[in-house]
């Protein structure tokens, strides 16, 4: 029996949607609240405001793809579901940036790991960034609400072999490890979360909050890029969107004008500050796009005697925070340890080299495991993050420099990953670096890692977590919005997404976005009722 596709059923029942690519004329749409971006922040906000009785319009740059479209193929997924056709990277091309771009945003393609914002992070924001109302106690009910909404619970199925290396290695070494909470219901344990969930088990926005919004009479406009806010004094008076072709590459020439009482920006890091930059929004203290964080990631491969099949099974189910807070919040750069899934195309680029060398690595793929370290940037004065800039065509790019402070963290992460991999049963380990090779003992790995020239391009770096760039905080000199996500200079504009974070999170950020935006949207709904 085929898997049901509730989104298509909803469309057939008459949900109101507009496909930008198919517009033959320019269009004007009106709503109480226009929400720009349909990912974690936009979806959560849409559900809450539509349930409160407001007419909501969700605007998404990317295409509408539903479970029947997901064929578990890397090429189709990467080119259709990721920003810039997966071409997004830091300005110098050294860090690949994975962000979703489709109805549901990154929630459509993330690996389902769902952590509450760590307590030290929330405390650091209150202490250092003048953030009010987001203490661990104040946030707890919002996290709990969204955990229930999205089925978030520690994964009950045994981890796949790729994840189990963290458990085995940490147990051997006396390091702490835990099971990852995932936002799934009835998960088939397939391993293709990054290519769109074909069974609707992942509780992405596409199967939860967006259907709820459309069911309440909300509307969805997709393949429409929010180009520019029209601003008059301290008020947003309209939004100009350009319709995109089916590939989401070129504008079709049609435009959509949106008029709303209130505007919520939820395009995520990079895209949200970029829209404000394109709109010449007031930015008296030059904060827009600044302090954008990435959780830079480096990785280490391990070769095993036994079969790992790193392409199958829930991609992330075990993590270790053993090294995350041991030197406090603001010490040397710290990291969370997890694993990536390795499908062939991704693996071929990560394992590196070409010709015979790459061919040998790829022939070993079924016995290969990989571990990643996700570095907690933004907590130390030597970690200021990057800046969003506009390119000639108005599209954004992130200038992100890797500081010596960060390189030190990356080198320590290579050491720790090798140690855990050998302790977890690896016969050989290779840091993912152009000058590295597989070595057969921890002693050799230590010598190799100490000798690596850690520099851009030679060190394979990636990011799937863009945070900051429209920081929240009570002081307009250092923040774009207040602690309720209200723009400091524009009174009918709110920001509800990960761009609000004053630092990185120190954990996969989706639940941080859900909890925070549920809190902000609820408060916005009350304000709209009693202006």
């Amino acid at each position, binding site marked *: 029996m085929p898997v049901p596709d509730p989104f298509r059923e909803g469309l057939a029942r008459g949900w109101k949607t507009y496909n930008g690519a198919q517009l033959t004329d320019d269009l004007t749409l009106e709503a109480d609240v226009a929400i720009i971006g349909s990912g974690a922040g936009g979806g959560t906000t849409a559900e809450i405001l539509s349930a409160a009785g407001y007419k909501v319009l969700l605007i998404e740059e990317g295409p509408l793809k539903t479970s029947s479209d997901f064929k578990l193929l890397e090429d189709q997924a990467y080119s259709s579901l990721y920003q810039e056709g997966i071409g997004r990277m830091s300005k110098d091309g050294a860090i690949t940036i994975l962000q979703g771009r489709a109805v549901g945003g990154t929630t459509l393609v993330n*690996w389902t790991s769902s952590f509450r914002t760590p307590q030290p992070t929330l405390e650091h924001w209150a202490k250092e960034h003048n953030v009010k109302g987001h203490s661990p106690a104040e946030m707890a009910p919002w996290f709990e609400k969204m955990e229930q909404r999205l089925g978030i619970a520690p994964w009950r199925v045994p981890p796949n072999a790729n994840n189990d290396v963290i458990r085995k290695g940490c147990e051997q070494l006396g390091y702490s490890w835990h099971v990852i909470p995932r936002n799934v219901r009835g998960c088939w344990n397939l391993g293709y979360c990054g290519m769109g969930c074909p069974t609707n088990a992942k509780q992405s926005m596409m199967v939860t909050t967006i259907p709820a919004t459309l069911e309440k009479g909300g509307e969805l406009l997709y393949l429409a890029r929010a180009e520019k806010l029209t601003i008059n004094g301290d008020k947003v008076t309209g939004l100009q969107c350009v319709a995109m072709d089916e590939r989401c590459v070129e504008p079709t020439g049609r435009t959509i004008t949106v008029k709303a009482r209130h505007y919520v920006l939820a395009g995520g890091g990079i895209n949200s500050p970029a829209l404000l930059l394109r709109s010449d929004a007031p930015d008296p203290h030059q904060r827009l796009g600044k302090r954008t964080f990435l*959780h830079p990631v480096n990785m280490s491969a391990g070769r095993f005697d036994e079969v790992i099949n790193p392409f199958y099974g829930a991609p992330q189910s075990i993590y270790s925070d053993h090294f995350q807070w041991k030197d406090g919040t603001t010490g040397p750069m710290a990291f969370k340890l997890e694993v990536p899934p390795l499908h062939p195309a991704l693996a071929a680029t990560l394992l590196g080299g070409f010709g015979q*060398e790459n061919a040998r690595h790829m022939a070993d793929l079924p016995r290969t495991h990989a571990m990643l370290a996700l570095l907690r940037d933004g907590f130390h004065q030597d970690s200021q993050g990057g800046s969003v800039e506009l390119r000639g065509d108005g599209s954004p790019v992130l200038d992100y420099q890797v500081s010596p402070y960060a390189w030190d963290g990356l080198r320590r992460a290579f050491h720790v990953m090798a140690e855990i991999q050998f302790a977890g049963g690896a016969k050989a380990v290779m840091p993912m670096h152009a000058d590295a090779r597989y070595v057969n003992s921890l002693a050799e790995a230590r010598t190799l890692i100490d000798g690596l020239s850690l520099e851009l*391009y030679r060190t394979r770096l990636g*990011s799937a977590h863009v945070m900051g760039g429209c920081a929240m905080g009570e002081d307009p000199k250092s923040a774009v919005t207040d602690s309720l996500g209200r723009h400091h200079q524009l009174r009918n504009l709110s920001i509800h997404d990960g761009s609000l974070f004053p630092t990185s999170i120190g954990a996969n950020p989706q639940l941080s976005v859900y909890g925070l935006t549920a809190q902000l949207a609820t408060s916005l709904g009350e304000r709209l009722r009693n202006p």
Partner: protein
Amino acid sequence: MHPSLTETPALSRRGLLKFSLGATAFLATAGVGASLSGCSSSVPANGFAALRNGDLLFLRALIPVMLDGAVAVETMPAAIDGTLKSLDASLDHLSPEMLKLTRQLFDVLGLAVTRGPLTGIWGSWENASPEAMRHFLERWENSSLSLLRMGHSSLQQMVMMAWYTRAESWAHCGYPGPPTV
């Protein structure tokens, strides 16, 4: 979480400007400036959406060197064609800015006046030996110019990713393919 995955090209704007300055000397000498100033052909080759004839000449020389060891000699011609098809489709979905940068990389490789000095391959790509190709790739990987290191990384990732998205590549890497839902 996540990986450094880059199927794409990575010439940054700043990197490219630096490079363009360096290349100006060659271009001025030869009296050619069209490509790097953005006036090069953007007409796709027959049967392709993004790749141009000049790009194909270079890639047909590069791909067999990249896939050596993963593809048997007798199936290499089909593997080259398949890789080109996949690469073309992914380039056709890139943002215009990233496609532009990728084409500038191909332009640098395609124009004889920049190709010789920067790659050590002075003749046409069709005549470049696999040894010469490997030498050029090693030279770029270890170049003192960050732009060339970036170019090396882009070429490696573009080709490898294009090939390993294809089902005919999966036997070599022991991937049974996605499950049926």
